[in-house]
């Protein structure tokens, strides 16, 4: 299994969860402080094509297969669009959109050899809620929705499913700087008015990667109800 963005938050939790069952390769810009005999960490930028290809070469040569990819790495920046530097906007798009595209493309090349693969992308309730201050972040996640839809069709004949999860508001670093009042108003807009727990996210990823799950692809699941 390959998971991106494993140094913290949901990615770190999923890494800990899946190293109990699988060999996990993870990556993030920062070092990871997690260690397990089932885990190998790569320090890299997910939008750096050269590094991404090196990582996938390593996986293909060492394991000869890749069954699961979780495109979790994501970058956000709360800021009014008028005040957002284009360098930050580019970084968000590179990490979220190009990173997801590159990892999916390279994963499909390996997965198709075994005619089996499960790709899970991460999107956000910033899209349907049209969150102010998240213009570029929401746009990047909307692009991932489109990628999920189109890739699910392009990869279906290779036995690969592609789905996306919008996690519920979860207490991770990504929302650390968001005001309490804003979070409360966000929770009110979810059908289930509470923070999500990390184990509730892994319950869904477990389901989506399951070998029996052969017919669910191209779906966007908004946890917490949108």
């Amino acid at each position, binding site marked *: 299994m390959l998971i991106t963005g494993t140094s913290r938050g949901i990615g770190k939790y999923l890494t800990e969860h899946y190293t109990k069952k699988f060999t996990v390769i993870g990556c993030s810009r920062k070092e990871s402080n997690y260690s397990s005999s089932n885990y190998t960490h790569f320090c890299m930028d997910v939008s750096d094509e*050269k590094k991404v290809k090196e990582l996938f*070469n390593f996986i*293909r*040569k060492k394991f000869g297969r890749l069954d699961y990819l979780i495109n979790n790495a994501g970058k956000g920046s709360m800021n009014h669009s008028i005040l957002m530097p284009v360098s930050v906007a580019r970084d968000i798009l590179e990490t979220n959109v190009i990173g997801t595209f590159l990892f999916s*493309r390279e994963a499909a*090349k390996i997965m*198709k050899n075994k005619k089996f693969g499960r790709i899970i992308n991460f999107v956000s309730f910033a899209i349907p809620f049209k969150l102010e201050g998240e213009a570029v972040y929401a746009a990047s996640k909307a692009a991932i929705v489109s990628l999920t839809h189109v890739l699910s069709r392009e990869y279906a004949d290779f036995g690969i499913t592609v789905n996306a999860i919008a996690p519920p508001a979860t207490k991770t670093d990504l929302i650390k700087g968001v005001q309490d009042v804003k979070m409360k108003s966000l929770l009110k807009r979810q059908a289930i008015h509470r923070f999500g727990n990390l184990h509730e996210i892994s319950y869904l990823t477990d389901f989506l990667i399951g070998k029996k799950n052969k017919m669910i692809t191209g779906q966007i699941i908004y946890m917490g109800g949108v």
Partner: protein
Amino acid sequence: MINTELITKLVYSVIDEINLELPKTKKLKKKLETQLYGDKSEIDSLSLVNIVVLTEQKIEDKFNISVNLADEKAMSQKNSPYKTIKTFVDYIEKSIE
């Protein structure tokens, strides 16, 4: 030294593998003028994807070179680098220069 002959040989070995999965009537001939993409090509887009990906992997394995054979002109009827085996070999040679 990697030259045209070595690359052609490598592409032919890819064609051998792809032919194993193609029906008898659609098997690709190992000739430079064989069409891989376009009106006269016998194969579908999935087989073309398989050829490109398998070629990338073989280049990485045999020559230890990481190469990306994706191209923006891939689906151009006129200028696709995948049009024939010859154009594909030329394109690979340029890509790994």
